[in-house]
């Protein structure tokens, strides 16, 4: 079993608040790994540490056997780790297709960017292909700021995909979107996973996680609590306890039914 992405003993505090406390995570190549836990358990912080937006105080992150602890976001991305954000972040005042083009090169030097046009034929084709994949191709020339919330989520997914990362970190892909779109996003993830992409997903929607993921890691108070197959995790009493303390009634209900 080879780990494509591995975090070991990550710690990080903000002021007096311990966001992460010796947290470890193991993402296998070709898997869809779910990362769940009550609010404030440190999931997003762990994402930020892995993708270089936050530097850890202790611990190591490795990707494909290389140590990437503390690397800058652009370097992490260049290696092949793409991510989306909980609050979708797109470039609102340039067009949808231009959003795609920002991401099409991972390792190009900045000097090259000066002398070349916005996109080559192949890049434009790739951009349109992925836009088509998420169903936004016909909106390509609109300013991205005019998209709806759900469309923005899809656009963010598309422009991460266009850079062809090996592993994709999704921060609440199903948050705040309607049921039809949730299923659609789930389908897209499954399709991509079959073609060899690895996924790490933070999500509050239990059903979404349990249906989609091969492995689920539960975080609690900045630590990884348990890891395992969805049904194992669902039946683990520790997990229920963690959520009971967190006051997330919906999830508690869901867990106790399962």
């Amino acid at each position: 079993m080879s780990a494509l992405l591995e975090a070991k003993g990550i710690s990080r505090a903000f002021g007096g608040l311990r966001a992460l406390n010796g947290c470890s995570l193991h993402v296998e190549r070709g898997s869809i790994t779910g990362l769940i836990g009550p609010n404030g358990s440190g999931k997003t912080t762990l994402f930020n540490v892995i993708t270089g937006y936050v530097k850890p105080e202790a611990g190591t992150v490795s990707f494909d056997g290389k140590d990437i602890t503390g690397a800058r976001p652009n370097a992490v991305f260049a290696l092949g780790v793409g991510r989306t954000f909980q609050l979708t972040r797109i470039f609102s005042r340039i067009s949808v297709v231009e959003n795609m083009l920002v991401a099409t090169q991972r390792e190009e030097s900045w000097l090259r960017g000066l002398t070349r046009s916005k996109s080559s034929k192949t890049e434009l084709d790739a951009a349109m292909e992925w836009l088509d994949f998420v169903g936004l191709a016909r909106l390509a020339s609109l300013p991205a700021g005019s998209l709806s919330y759900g469309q923005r989520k899809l656009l963010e997914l598309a422009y991460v995909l266009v850079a062809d990362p090996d592993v994709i970190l999704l921060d609440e892909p199903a948050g705040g979107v309607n049921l039809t779109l949730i299923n659609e996003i789930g389908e897209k993830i499954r399709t991509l996973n079959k073609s060899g992409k690895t996924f790490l997903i933070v999500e509050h929607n239990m059903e979404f996680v349990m249906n989609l993921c091969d492995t689920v890691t539960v975080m609690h108070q900045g630590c990884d609590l348990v890891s395992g197959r969805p049904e194992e995790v669902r039946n683990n009493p520790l997990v229920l306890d963690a959520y009971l303390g967190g006051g997330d009634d919906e999830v508690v209900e869901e867990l106790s039914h399962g």
Partner: protein
Amino acid sequence: MKLRQSAWWALGLVIFALFPVVVTNPFYTTIGIFTVIYMGCATSWNMFSGYSGYVSLGTAIFYGCGAYTMALVSIHGHIPGGAEQFWVVPLGGLVAMAIAVPLGAVALRVRRHTFVVITIAFFFVFQLAAINANFTGGPAGLSLELIPWQGDAYNTPFYYVALAILVFSVVLSALVRRSRFGLQLLAIRDDEDRALGLGVKVKAVKLTGYTMSAFVVGMAGALYAMFLGQIYPQFVFDPVFDVTIALMAFLGGFGTLLGPLVGGLILESSQQWLTANYSNGSLYLILFGALFLIVVLFMPQGIVVKVKEVWSKRTSTGSDATQAPLATLGSESL
């Protein structure tokens, strides 16, 4: 559509090229020279600040450095007053660029709002240095050798060199907008951290843009020094210049190609005309400030965007109108 656009640009260029042929009165050609110089500077400013969202209020640093380059090289290089001095103009641009690199390296470490203020601080460092240093001639400034050109024709070469700088600036700005580099600047304006996360080397991109925009302003400053034949530190390092350039871009349309041109044309020509006709400078200040306030209140996106909006509303009976409904349709289906 593309062709029609190019035709408009060509027409504009022809009008500007013919201006000194039709109008020979030096009173008006002088206004023309300043207007063209400011249009070029505003375009160049916009190429960095408009595209990246990093509003710089220290543009006069480059203008002043260009001007001093012209003066010092002409004086110490014993260049006779005349056409030979034009060769120093690009040098002024290069010196401005060389100064922009360390300034940008420090100033671009901070984010937007602080960046504005740090550029102002830099500006005052340069102005005070120019006033107090010895090699700049201090508050008395520097005098260049007289150019022995006579009469109405004196202005013509300056006008065309200024026009060449303007054309260069517009072409450069348009090329940048079309390049990957320009796209990266725009991405930085919208969400710098996200751009960084997508592999954009934001530091290098910002510094490159800042440095490039200094070039045209430096050349403009050099041309200004040559044109007047006399420079004073408080006039080439002028805080009003800093803000005027930014005002022009905002007035016309921040981040657009046409905006700074329109803003520069309107503001600088009216400023020159007002100062020439009313020796009373305070009336000019009031009019200038009021004009800008009115524009901001009624067309906050700038004249160009506003006019386009009105225009497309008038003509939106046919195919042009499909864009907006398309967006609504899209959001409903998802």
